[in-house]
């Protein structure tokens, strides 16, 4: 019984936290708010090496056929848009030889890795696989 109550409290707390997170993002969060965890970026790096590196390169700089995913080039392509839009494009079109065929979590993890590669700050929470939340996170210049 006690365990059950504890679990319920935990669920309630997590729900509240997720709601708070959603509200926070919806109210104008950006990639500078610590929106992914280092563990998630580490998982994303493994995904990147297996599925993305061939075209975008080890340094994420891209080549003539594949856009760079870091630095000035990345910000030129994505500044002013949301992580949701970035995530959706990756999920729908990548990898080009098998678009949309990676596990869902892999896509969000690789977004976290790309955030880390762009020196956006790490946070305590993982970037969730939730379109609404991702849509509330703007890719913005450093405040």
């Amino acid at each position, binding site marked *: 019984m006690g365990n059950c109550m504890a679990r319920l409290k935990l669920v309630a707390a997590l729900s509240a936290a997720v709601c708070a997170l959603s509200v926070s993002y919806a109210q104008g969060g950006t990639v500078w708010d610590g929106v992914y965890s280092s563990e998630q970026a580490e998982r994303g790096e493994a995904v990147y090496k297996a599925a993305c*590196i061939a075209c975008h390169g*080890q340094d994420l*700089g891209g080549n003539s*056929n*594949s856009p760079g995913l870091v630095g000035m*080039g990345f910000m*030129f392509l994505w500044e002013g848009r949301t992580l949701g839009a970035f995530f959706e494009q990756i999920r729908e079109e990548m990898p080009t030889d098998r678009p949309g*065929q990676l596990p869902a979590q892999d896509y969000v993890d690789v977004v976290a890795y790309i955030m880390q590669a762009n020196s956006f700050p790490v946070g305590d929470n993982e970037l969730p696989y939730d379109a609404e939340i991702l849509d509330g996170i703007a890719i913005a210049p450093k405040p």
Partner: protein
Amino acid sequence: MIRSNAMCGGEFGKRELPRSILPSLSLTLSLIAPFASAQIESFSAVDDEMLNSPATGEWLSWRGTPAAWGYSPLDQINTENVDQLQLKWSFALDDTGAIQAAPLIHDGIMFIPSARGVIQALDAVTGDLLWEYRPAPPTEEFINSGAGTRAAVLPAGAFAGVGRGVQKNIALYGEMIYASTETASIRAIDARSGLLVWETQVADPTLGYFYTAGPIIANGTLVTGITGCDRYKDDVCFITGHDPATGEEKWRTSTVARPEDPGGDTWGDLPLRFRAGSDAWVAGSYDPQANLIYWGTAQAKPWARAVRGTDGDALYTNSTLALNPDNGEMAWYFQHIPGETQDMDEVFENILIDIDGRKSLFKMGKLGILWQLDRETGEFIKATDIGYQNIVNLDPITGQITYRDGMIPRIGEELNMCPSTSGVKSWRAMAYSPDTSAMYIPITLNCELATFGPTERQLGGGGAGPVRRVNYHHPQSDGNLGEILALDIPSGEVKWRYRSRAPFNTAALTTAGGLVFAGDWNRTMSALDADNGELLWQVRLATSNQGFPISYSVNGKQYIAMPVGTGGASWSGSLPRELAPELSRPRNGSSINVFALPD
């Protein structure tokens, strides 16, 4: 023809000590562990005369002959019977990378490059595997050397290396198969056994260098052009000549004018490290009478003038270079689009045709302008704009290009341009038939709203530069993405057009049987009447047609071979997905498919 034996595994790959020009990278050579399943006994050595004038049923160069016509003199399969074609055999190719294969045929054997350095020898009649060369996974020693940071550190089986391991073509000479690799080396493989004889590291892959174009042989020299030259580094792109017996580098010719060289001022005051591009990513042609090779170069990088920091012509980008294969000296160059600024490549195949007694070279780049040059002097003869581009004006008398008002991109400002960066024409080589005096050109129809962005001007930076893109259908396309265009040579007048919803995704092949073969992204391989473009035969294959179809004969029987595969440039997948979303292709299925008439 063959003798089975027990040769298998790495030790047989080290029959001779390999060579290396870059000592720090010599470790690569210990990685090679080819598989060899048989010894081909009936193979005859290939000499210069055979290469320059191949027997009717042979296909000894990537486009048939050194003149690169993509034409077969065989006529057993013709307009009257092509509808009876049957699949004779099919063989799966490596699926861990991109396929853009150009097979070769000699003594009834097909040698075919696959992805990731894999090469196979197949019985051209039955499809039986005779041998397979497959580089071994990298060792820890190699990984730790740093030489393979772009590729070798990846998990086994993962796609690795920029370009996904494309090797378009291989060369056949003497008793060797020659290949260039995704890690910027050249290999010689025994054509009888599939065993590695030597490997030479030509450039440092950690700087981004790699090959997608294979070598050619010209007057006994092995010639190949590097790519991956888009990042800023203290070096520039180049073409090299090698001793086929040893791999020793005989010469190296830069495809970029260095600051101290003639033409060096065409890059403004940019130092060497910021002179990027001019990649030589499509194999050249060779005229044995003139003893000149003709090799194209790609655009300058970054693509947009405003991003790369100079309005200059940027020699020798987007040019045709005529080089002496003995020493690499440049006999002449012709820059098709000086100061190109939108990723409109002119690197593609060079087709050598004698027209009205004039030794000519024909070429078409992404803008869809068919160029005719005097290949002995480089003099401009004629240019025909096929009318699908809105970027430049062409002076038909002088061949001079001028940009239309507002078509030189500025950073952050949207341009409405046709074609898109996919180009009207790309690596999918056109073919020439002397029977119809026509050029058959695989065309991609689409346009783009393009916004070019900045890059970091620092070592390791650069690249092509970011571009925001919105692709849309070409206003003249009727919703079609693909076209085979037949142009009369030399007038440039349109003979016919054949269109398809899906983009054509192979080179064209034309034959003395009055046929044109090509395949599209949507798995459909077609045979058209070379005279009028009438569709005569079609078949659906496993996945996208991709590569260089060929024709050959063995024991009096003619065959047509079509490679299919996945991978390729990003837009080759994104264009159909965006503009013809009802089309799809399997992610696997890379193979070579061989057709013939019923026995």
